[in-house]
């Protein structure tokens, strides 16, 4: 059992030692420190505490033969054969990592009547596409989809499995990871691979302003989910490279207790993921009416309005407009944040944008770390003035044009 042992004689100041733990897991009981169930094994007490006071002990490390696990597989996210673009982004990342460790890149494509679409994947850097084309896989149902994923893993033994952070991906990845009793890291924002094939998984953690570097040292496959718009897809090549392999699976493995009754098309709404310009309203917005100026700025820039979590909680904006890990990930050409403090869960949802401009009164706001242009000022002054300037700028252009015409 891995645990943290406290050497009480090394601790002079109980209060200071208690405060080491960010999770309040070091407790004082009858004048002695103890570690309670709140411990996250972050080992901060070991690193930052008095020398020798906190010791991390681990026994019986399980070992596996990592050589047996070869390949990086990408789960092909699709609806009725229409491939979700996150798939191509993941293939791009898989290619980059696989080249480093000289592994093949696989795509796992399951559904019904998808053989034609499978070829499209060969334009994006996949070595082999594994196709399970079965009527039972027409609609997404967890048991048959998980059974196919399991079958594929047993067949190819991939070292790494990448799955898009869509509603389908977030349903199937954990199910299969649990089946193989292996690790799964959700919503990674950075991925890299070590020479020994260990996957470096970096993501914002503990809901706060912290990044965690997570790895899976003794288990394979290593599962990670990544959201849409985090990585960049490779350019589509004109030539098909690689092969498509048809796979068979026993019908009884595709049994399900779920019956799909109907598929409804969602009404096509303009999503913030597709916007080229986004203006974000943050906590500094004092009342709902004040959103009008944000909307106006977005309008004249030809963009969309988005917001941070507090505004969703206040019920001022549609939840689909939320940027961040608990909302959507965006990568527009321009994003202007207005009165956003920049909690990491927000920043993780937008810091791949091409140009980030942040306006905030507080010069210490975290958002300035992420911004290309940080403006220390009041949105209630700057935004209306900017709107006026842009409008009058346009006006003068129009005036100029009409003058030319005359």
């Amino acid at each position, binding site marked *: 059992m891995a645990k943290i042992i406290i050497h009480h004689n090394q601790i002079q100041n109980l209060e200071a030692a208690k405060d080491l733990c960010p999770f309040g897991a070091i407790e004082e009981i009858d004048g002695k420190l103890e*570690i309670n169930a709140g411990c996250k094994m972050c080992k901060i007490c070991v690193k930052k505490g008095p020398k020798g006071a906190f010791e991390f002990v681990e026994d019986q490390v399980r070992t596996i033969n990592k050589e047996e696990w070869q390949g990086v597989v990408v789960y092909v996210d699709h609806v009725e054969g229409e491939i979700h673009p996150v798939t191509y982004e993941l293939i791009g990342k898989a290619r980059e990592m696989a080249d480093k460790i000289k592994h093949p890149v696989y795509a796992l494509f399951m559904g019904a009547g998808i053989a034609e679409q499978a070829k499209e994947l060969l334009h994006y850097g996949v070595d082999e596409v594994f196709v399970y084309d079965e009527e039972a896989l027409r609609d997404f149902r967890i048991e048959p989809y998980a059974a196919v994923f399991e079958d594929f893993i047993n067949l190819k033994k991939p070292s790494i499995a990448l799955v898009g952070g869509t509603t389908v991906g977030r349903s199937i990845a954990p199910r299969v990871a649990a089946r193989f009793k292996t690790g799964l890291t959700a919503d990674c924002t950075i991925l890299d691979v070590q020479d020994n094939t260990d996957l470096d998984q970096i993501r914002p953690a503990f809901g706060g302003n*912290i990044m965690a*570097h997570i790895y899976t040292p003794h288990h394979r496959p290593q599962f990670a989910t990544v959201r849409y718009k985090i990585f960049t897809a490779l350019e589509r090549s004109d030539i098909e490279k690689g092969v498509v392999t048809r796979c068979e699976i026993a019908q009884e493995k595709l049994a399900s207790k779920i019956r799909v009754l109907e598929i409804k098309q969602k009404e096509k709404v303009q999503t913030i993921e597709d916007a080229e310009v986004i203006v974000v309203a943050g906590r500094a917005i004092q009342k709902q009416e004040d959103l009008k100026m944000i909307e106006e700025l977005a309008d004249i820039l030809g963009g969309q309005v988005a917001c941070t979590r507090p505004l969703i909680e206040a019920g001022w904006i549609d939840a689909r407009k939320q940027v961040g890990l608990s909302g959507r990930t965006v990568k527009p050409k321009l994003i202007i944040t207005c009165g956003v403090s920049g909690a990491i869960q927000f920043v993780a949802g937008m810091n791949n944008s091409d140009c980030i401009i942040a306006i905030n009164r507080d010069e210490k706001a975290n958002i300035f770390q992420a911004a290309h242009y940080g403006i220390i000022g009041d949105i209630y002054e700057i935004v209306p003035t*900017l709107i006026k300037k842009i409008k009058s700028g346009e006006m003068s252009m129009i005036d100029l044009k009409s003058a030319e015409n005359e």
Partner: protein
Amino acid sequence: MEITVCIKQVPGTSEVEVDEKTGVLKRDGIDSKMNPYDLYAIETAVQLKEAHGAHITAISMGPPQAAEVIKEAFMMGVDEGALLTDRKFAGSDVLATSYTLAQGVKKTGNPDLVICGKMTTDGDTAQVGPEMAEFLGIPHIANVLRILEVGEKSIIVEMDMPSTIEVAEIAFPCLITVEKGIFQPRLPSFKLKMATKDKKITFYSLQDFDDTDEKNYGLNGSPTQVKRIFPPEGNLDHEIWGGSNAELSEQLFGKLKELKFV
């Protein structure tokens, strides 16, 4: 119908910061609250109870003080509560957490329906529900938008898909994770608060479970490990502008023109 709802106590604020010099997390009090997404799970269970009759158990995993969220669940209409607490659960990742919760669910009976919130605000992973369903050996549907029908042996739900909505019938026993907005969560009732103030919460530790092998819990049962935590790297290539608001507006206008956005 037997329903089990899984809930979690999370930090009251997401403003956790890292001291750049020492690398130690700064903690502003130990303020905590119920994971807001779990309120929708509880509300869903209570709505089902009111419409069709059900017995609801809430379970949580965490330190002893996490019993607070179970008390809150009582005030919303949950009938029973269990807390899974043991130092040996410390350091659990998604897999170990799901496994522990699944053991807890088995301990509290075999429910027809397990309901989880969509995700937690401190982990933001949305993966514990599906992993738990795997360990319980039951089907699941994640991201349920609406419950359309409740039958004797199954329920019909709407599942949120990337570009469609799937209407599906799922047989009991099963697990669902519900979206925010499935129902409006009620406020805790004062009447229920009074009526349940002495209600017992059952505490389970590792030795109470069917599987008492320490290797499957806590850090030992967690395939993923945290190598290090660090403050996010900022954008190195950045400019910070100060000045009067009028100057700043002018400068911003100039920049937007230069970048050809206006």
